[in-house]
């Protein structure tokens, strides 16, 4: 029946497994005791001046505030209480690193790669007041490099955003078709404005070629004309073709669904959109919304590379959103976005410069 099923004597397969297990167990025990006696001796190169010593009791950290340079830091955490304790580095609610089950009187090493910022550390029991761990950006430490892995989150989120906007575009065009069939000119203009806004928000994801000629360029032009105009003649020509607009929007949605827009491309689109910002209008508000989405997605990454640039971009974006006369502000924003793009473009080694 089964490998282990023969009554009485174990089957050959099981016996083999038993022998192998015994062998692995012996090897494991030997390795364990080797590691134990090896670790008992002080290791050269293991304890360096870089080590940060922290003593914890049930309710305190000693010191309660620590400042370390960004990069790799080794903490030696010693439990000076009478209870088993754990030690955690927290970023908000996120556990950055932790060590559990530290026995009274003993220490454990924790090596963490920390980005600049302010963190909390647990001190003894989790209900005790937290200590502060400040990580300073340092010039000595090489600036952190980002790789494709770091882009996965923002890229996936941007894809979801694009799908949402193409859905909004499709919904507006569907309603537009209904309004056109009912010959309701005001409603057509209204829906066209909505469709145009959705298009403006996803426009940074499109390529220059797509915007220059072809179905997507036609769609953009038709939407802009319809949304901007309220004359019956304009609308009459527009109303003739809602179905073909829907086909074009469908092609656009399919193209976007299959597209991976990396930060480099996102920011290229955002720069183009920022440069094209004209007088404040409903359309430009949507374009700015499309830029804001990209900035928000990439802000955490840029903060890690260049915190002042991230802050300046956020400030300039705010100015563009507020200011009625935003020509200078949008130029400044375009400059920020270009700088961000340079930071986030991967070089031949697959890392940021």
């Amino acid at each position, binding site marked *: *029946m*089964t*490998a*282990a*099923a*023969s*009554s009485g004597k*174990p089957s050959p397969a*099981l016996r083999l*497994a*038993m022998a*192998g*297990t*015994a062998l*692995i*167990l*012996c*090897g*494991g*025990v030997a*390795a*364990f005791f*080797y*590691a*134990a006696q*090896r*670790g*008992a001796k002080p*290791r050269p190169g*293991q304890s360096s001046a870089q080590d940060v010593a922290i003593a914890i009791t049930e309710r305190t950290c000693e010191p309660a505030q620590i400042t370390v340079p960004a990069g790799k830091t080794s903490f030696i955490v010693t439990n000076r209480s*009478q*209870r*088993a304790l754990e030690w955690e580095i927290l970023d*908000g*609610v*996120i*556990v*950055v*690193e*932790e*060590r*559990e*089950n530290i*026995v*009274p*009187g*003993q*220490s*454990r*090493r*924790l*090596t963490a790669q920390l980005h600049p910022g302010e963190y909390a550390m647990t001190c003894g*029991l*989790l*209900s005790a007041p937290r200590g502060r761990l400040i990580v300073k950006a340092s010039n000595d430490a090489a600036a952190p490099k980002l790789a494709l892995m770091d882009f996965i989150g923002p890229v996936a989120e941007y894809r979801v955003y694009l799908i949402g906007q193409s859905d909004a575009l499709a919904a507006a065009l569907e309603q537009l078709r209904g309004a056109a069939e009912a010959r309701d000119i005001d409603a057509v203009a209204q829906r066209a404005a909505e469709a145009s806004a959705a298009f403006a928000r996803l426009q940074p994801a499109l390529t220059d070629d797509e915007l220059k000629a072809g179905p997507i360029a036609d769609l953009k032009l038709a939407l802009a004309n319809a949304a901007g105009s309220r004359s019956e003649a304009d609308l009459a020509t527009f109303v003739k073709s809602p179905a073909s607009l829907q086909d074009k929007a469908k092609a656009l949605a399919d193209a976007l669904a299959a597209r991976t827009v990396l930060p480099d491309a996102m920011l290229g689109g955002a720069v183009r959109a920022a440069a094209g910002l004209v007088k404040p209008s409903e359309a430009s508000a949507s374009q700015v919304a499309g830029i804001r989405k990209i900035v928000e997605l990439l802000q955490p990454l840029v903060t890690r590379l260049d915190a002042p640039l991230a802050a300046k971009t956020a400030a300039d974006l705010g100015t563009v959103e507020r200011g009625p006369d935003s020509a200078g502000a949008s130029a400044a924003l375009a400059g920020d976005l270009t700088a961000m793009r340079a930071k986030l473009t991967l070089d031949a080694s697959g890392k940021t410069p």
Partner: protein
Amino acid sequence: MLVPFLIMLREGIEAALIVGIIASYLARTGRSEWLPALWVGAVLACGASLAVGAGLDIVSGELPQRAQELFEACVGLIAVALLTSMVFWMRKAARSIKGELHAGIDAALSGERQGLALVGLAFLAVAREGLESVFFLLAVLQQSSGWEAPAGAALGLAGAVVVGFAIHAMGMKLNLRVFFRWTGIFILFVAAGLVANAVRALHEAGLWNGLQQIAYDIGALLPVDGPLGSVLSGFFGYQERATLGEVLAYLAFLVPTLAFFLATGRPEPKLSGARP
């Protein structure tokens, strides 16, 4: 000495409990021939944990905590799925025996696949606690000047093994119907603890950060590193302080499964009396 003892007892019980439950279950469903494979799986996990733990200690000197937490969460969820399915198999079996006791309940119920899955689970359950325990034991051994702390840890480990065999022995002694009914309820509570701790492990692995408000904190009343707290933690995943997400996950698992188990697991009424 007490602290290392309790830590190892807790970690050990977490593993021994699952192995003990699986052993009783295999024996009581007439599949004792799987038991040697089960022991092999458990011992293999010990050997593998020792080897991997020692290797990691020599290479980097540190436990990759996030990876360990992710591993714990995954194994915890696999264990929940298998334990829960076991509970409901038992319920089915309990209904089919109608008060009579016979060991070979239903050969059709016992597939080879399930046997393999259970042996695999025993391996994973031991490995899940094993790696972390090896790092703990290494730290204790390397830093202790006296014999008390290592002895305490060793005794804790031995205690956990005793608990595992005690569960197995108890499962063998119980009346079969009682076994299926009360063990089922017991296992559902164990599984609910595994669910809550999987949520915690996912948080510590950096993957789940929602619902982190503290739901309760009774550390002053029943500290998790005290004797009773450690044992409860080993068996039922007790935590002295839990987040809202953990509590919700615990209840979301326990309430429906327990209700379903109690509602349908009742012995069938005697048909002969009610309807001639």
